[in-house]
């Protein structure tokens, strides 16, 4: 068996993991599974694409940084895209989820997120059409690194970026006051309110972090594969499976879950065939639900 699936799996796993962080945070802090999270990815990718276009219009054509397929316009555009996606998530919460959350029935919020997901996707198809687009059409030559594995400079850069982001979120969650408030709220909402934690602020931070990471994951898909309105929706099942496999509420768990699913998918593509890729996350999800429903790092529900 060719070891190339390790690189492919790690890359797919990074995208899934970054998305799953948002899913697991929304689930543990806002207590609902957000079916619109995949569409944040797609919105992030399209927002970044639009920002790249705007920067290109203002500063003219800029050569990419030596071995990579992209230059600083894309890097700046990702930051803009993250801000836009974070704001989009905040706006959606303000207009939709916050109102329904106040009514107290979690499952209605889930249904609303399912509807919002369709609306967001249709809006993308309306604005950008459903034809796939790309950040760059340049072809990169993959370098052999031994053991039959080949990797492109873009892929190395994105793996490093994922590692930095995951470390950043982990530090945010464990070392800052905001992060500790987030953990407190997810562990016991009533007690967290009693000790005076600013719930509205924690909710805002959750949406912004989730949205921004979804944007990065979307841009990664855009750089390595392609951009299309359904790109995020197709990631939904792997993201949920990763969040549950890792244990709801656990950021390292979500990333590890994402990597496991990414590797399993890549292995399945090599062994069984690419068309069955999407079934892998479902099988893992069912196995986790039957064997250990709290996931790898989860805590039992109270």
């Amino acid at each position, binding site marked *: 068996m060719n070891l190339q699936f390790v690189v492919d799996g790690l890359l797919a796993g990074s995208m899934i993991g970054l998305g799953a962080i948002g899913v697991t945070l929304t*689930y543990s802090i806002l207590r*609902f*599974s957000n*079916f619109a999270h995949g569409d944040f990815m797609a919105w992030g990718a399209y927002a970044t694409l639009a920002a790249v276009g705007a920067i290109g219009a203002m500063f003219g054509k800029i050569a990419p940084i030596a071995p990579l397929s992209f230059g600083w316009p894309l890097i700046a555009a990702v930051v803009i895209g993250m801000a836009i996606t974070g704001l989009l998530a905040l706006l959606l919460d303000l207009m939709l989820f916050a109102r329904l959350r106040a009514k107290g029935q*979690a*499952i209605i919020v*889930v*249904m609303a997120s*399912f*509807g919002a997901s*369709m609306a967001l996707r*249709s809006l993308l198809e309306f604005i950008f059409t459903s034809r796939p687009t790309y950040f760059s059409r340049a072809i990169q030559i993959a370098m052999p690194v031994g053991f039959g594995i080949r990797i492109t400079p873009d892929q190395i850069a994105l793996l490093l970026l994922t590692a930095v982001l995951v470390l950043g979120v982990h530090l945010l969650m464990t070392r800052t006051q905001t992060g500790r408030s987030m953990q407190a709220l997810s562990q016991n909402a009533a007690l967290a309110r009693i000790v005076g934690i600013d719930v509205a602020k924690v909710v805002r931070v959750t949406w912004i972090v989730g949205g921004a990471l979804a944007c990065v994951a979307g841009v990664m898909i855009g750089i390595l594969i392609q951009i299309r309105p359904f790109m995020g*929706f197709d990631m*939904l*099942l792997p993201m*949920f*499976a990763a969040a*549950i496999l890792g244990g709801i509420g656990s950021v390292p768990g979500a990333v590890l879950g994402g990597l496991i699913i990414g590797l399993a998918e890549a292995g399945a593509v090599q062994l069984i065939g690419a*068309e*069955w890729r*999407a*079934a892998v*996350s*479902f099988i893992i*999800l*069912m196995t986790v*639900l*039957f064997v250990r*429903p709290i996931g790898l790092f989860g805590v039992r*529900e109270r």
Partner: protein
Amino acid sequence: MDLLGYGAFFLTTALIFSLVTLGLNLQWGLTGLFNVGLAGFVAIGAYTSALLTTPDDAARLGGFGLPILVGWLGAMVVGGVAAAITGIATLRLRSDYLAITTFGVAVVVQLVALNAQKLTGGPFGIGFIPRPFGGLAETPLLFNLSNLAVVSVVTLIVYLALEHLSRSPWGRVLKALREDERAAISLGKSARFYRVQAFAVGGAIMALAGALQAHFTGFIAPDNYLPALTFQVWVMLIVARAATSAPSSAASWSGRFGPDREP
């Protein structure tokens, strides 16, 4: 005359939707179970029945040429079993897990429908599904009216059975579980057991609706069962308000007047 035929065709489609809505109403309205993958269960029913009743086809498995009624029963059994397995896996956990898993079921069913060519015909779908009163297809009006009668009878039977069930002790337990789980459990009712049953029966009804539609149109393909179908049926149920099973048929009719499904 043509308009009358179209009216009958339209009513048949609407009634099939109301049958799906009745299944969803049993799961959500009566029991409070959240199914985001109902398109998957409808598809399971359609494909099962098509597989059992179509004439033999060399390109794929079966085509067993069985009577249509056997196809409908088979659809209900397979749909019910699939729903039961989903329920057993998730119903001891928080309600969101059921939502996520049913979503997964819809994705996987779509995947199987598209890729398992030997079983489902792949993207080309399954054709030549026998239609009730197929001999009348020469005169569309008569054909549409007789199909409308068949679908009406089935829907009426399911509706009356559900009405009866919801008033029976079984239905009262479900309502009790939905309203106050702890109180119901303290009376010695197993929450998980009853919910799995309700979910399975709901899944079987959805599968039956899928089978009815497959035999009405005579052709099925994976595109018929996209997530948009799930949302459409949810809108029908929400319009009809949860927990009353009668208005769901009315709402599903009005649902057909709404914007068409997304491409």
